[in-house]
């Protein structure tokens, strides 16, 4: 039940800037995911929000109140760490009670809160075990329990699932998201895993080299990436990128690539397209199909089939268009590996067009 504003926040260690002038708003009850490759400053940002590190300059407001200079405990938040960071000499119960004891709550109240959180996280059976007697997933649940047993208005998660195996990770994704839906506590969740971001977030901030690349809802981020980095980072298999130029034919914009043209008349340009501009045309693998398109100007894309990656539900067929790689996500029954050269066509409503100069969406 809290709103967070980050204003012109900068952080440098000695002489290297981690980020400069970051601005970010987190709405009440939102589940915001900070997504970025490792080393891009996600943990640093989270630590600054938590009050574990101080920024070089800038402001952080929680519910309109500047919290810079406040101790972590005075910011009304709790945090879950990548390494779980459970207190190794205490039981799960001890871990969950610690913050409440420090805050001076009555014993009976502590017990009640711990029981309640434990029930919510299916930890009741494990309350008297030490962290060393728990499996990875149980440890992570205990760490989440420790965070939510306190009445806070902001949850911070720093890559909480990255030490778990794939199956457990997808299960925990759902559990964390359900907890958020039940409790409605504003959450900031840091990860480098775009699947986690897509599946859990109500909005995603993509961070690279300390610069916010895009802040949008997951589907927008997927459909309309703001730049080439986001286009390549989001999606289980990255967006196909083809080099070309803008041309205007009969008053309609087209992408002129080597050996073929793609009709862009249905693409929503932000500014009127300029003929001759160098572009990168982005197409998601699921928006490419075998065969000629009926009657449009999207013709002449010829691809040589290279290799296939069966993914179970569907199959990724890798081809070469000229010397550029192009993947298609197709039904496994359609997949072919005959090294033939075949025609392809694109879904013209699902294209992305970037400037090759600025790498930004046009």
């Amino acid at each position: 039940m809290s709103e967070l504003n980050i204003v012109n926040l900068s952080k440098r260690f000695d002489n290297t800037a981690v980020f400069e002038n970051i601005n970010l708003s987190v709405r009440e009850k939102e589940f915001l995911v900070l997504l970025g490759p490792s080393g891009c400053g996600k943990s640093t940002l989270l630590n600054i929000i938590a009050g574990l590190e101080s920024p070089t300059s800038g402001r952080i407001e929680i519910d309109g109140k500047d919290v810079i200079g406040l101790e972590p405990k005075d910011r009304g938040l709790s945090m879950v760490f990548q390494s779980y960071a459970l207190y190794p000499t205490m039981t799960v119960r001890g871990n969950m009670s610690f913050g409440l004891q420090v805050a001076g709550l009555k014993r009976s109240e502590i017990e009640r809160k711990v029981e309640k959180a434990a029930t919510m996280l299916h930890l009741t059976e494990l309350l008297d075990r030490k962290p060393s007697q728990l499996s990875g997933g149980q440890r992570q649940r205990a760490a989440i329990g420790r965070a939510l047993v306190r009445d806070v208005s902001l949850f911070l998660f720093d890559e909480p699932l990255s030490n778990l195996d794939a199956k457990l990770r997808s299960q925990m994704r759902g559990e964390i998201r359900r907890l958020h839906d039940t409790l409605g506590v504003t959450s900031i969740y840091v990860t480098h895993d775009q699947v986690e971001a897509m599946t859990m977030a109500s909005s995603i901030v993509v961070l690279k080299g300390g610069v916010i690349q895009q802040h949008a809802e997951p589907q927008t981020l997927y459909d309309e990436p703001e730049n080439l980095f986001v286009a390549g980072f989001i999606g289980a298999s990255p967006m196909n990128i083809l080099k070309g130029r803008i041309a205007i034919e009969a008053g309609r914009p087209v992408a002129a690539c080597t050996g073929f043209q793609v009709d862009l008349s249905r693409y929503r340009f932000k500014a009127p397209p300029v003929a001759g501009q160098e572009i990168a045309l982005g197409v998601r693998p699921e928006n490419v199909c075998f065969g000629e398109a009926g009657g449009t100007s999207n013709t002449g894309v010829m691809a040589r089939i290279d290799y296939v990656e069966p993914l179970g539900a569907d199959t990724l067929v890798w081809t070469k268009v000229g010397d550029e790689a192009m993947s298609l996500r197709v039904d496994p029954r359609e997949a072919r590996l005959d090294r033939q050269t075949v025609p392809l066509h694109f879904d013209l409503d699902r294209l992305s067009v970037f400037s090759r100069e600025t790498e930004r969406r046009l």
Partner: protein
Amino acid sequence: MNSKIIGRIGIYAFLAVSTAFFLIPVYIMVTTSLKGMPEIREGNIFALPLDPNFSAWFKAWSSACIGMACDGIRGGFGNSLKIMVPSVILSVALSSLNGYALALWNVRRAELMLGLLMAGAFIPYQVLLYPLVIMTRTLGIYGTLPGIIAIHVLFGLPVLTLIFRNFYASLPTEIMKAARVDGAGFMQIYWRIMLPMSPSILVVAVILQVTGIWNDYLLGLIFAGRDNLPMTAQLNNLVNSTFGEKEYNVNMAATILTAATPLLVYLASGRYFVRGITSGAVKG
């Protein structure tokens, strides 16, 4: 294959020689302490005692003459305890707190502090004796029990603080962050989280201090004062006494008794000592 066997033989030969190097003197000490003087005068130091008995031990403990007093070295034992126990407790408590602060909190000039600690740990303490005599005299604690305790604590702090700092610095930093987010302060984190994680390193520190302080001779002689002379100083007075016949059996027994305390501490906690050394003291 052959060279492996030769290597093995080499290793065992080395181990045997070094064991003998330490064990032969121990053997001579123990056997001599169990003999009577006539038997010792025969000069056969490797022979087993014909009639082993502990009378020399009892004499060393309670009736051997040191100077004018004939009370054995038991008084020295008591003095050593009075010096050691508070010194060990104080130095270990202070240095673990110091190490914790240096490793896990943003102490200003921590780097400089570490450099000074290193220097403190490696400067031979003989260099500092005269200034310390003057300082303790000015403070009025020269030649008193608090004086010698303060000296031992001071000399213990640098090395111990480094050991503790390295141990705490090797712990995952996120535990510390979690505790701060949970709202715990400096002392709460120390008491409730860090100390419970430290038994192995505490054992290392205690053993180092017990042996160091118990075996100390020079500092005790200089700073403890006539009434508080530690066991080592009394042992020296006994062994080097110039009166009468040298009672080798009593001297040997007194020496063994003096060495017994650190030895017992080792035997009781050697397992933790090794574990502590390998789990942080060195690794950090």
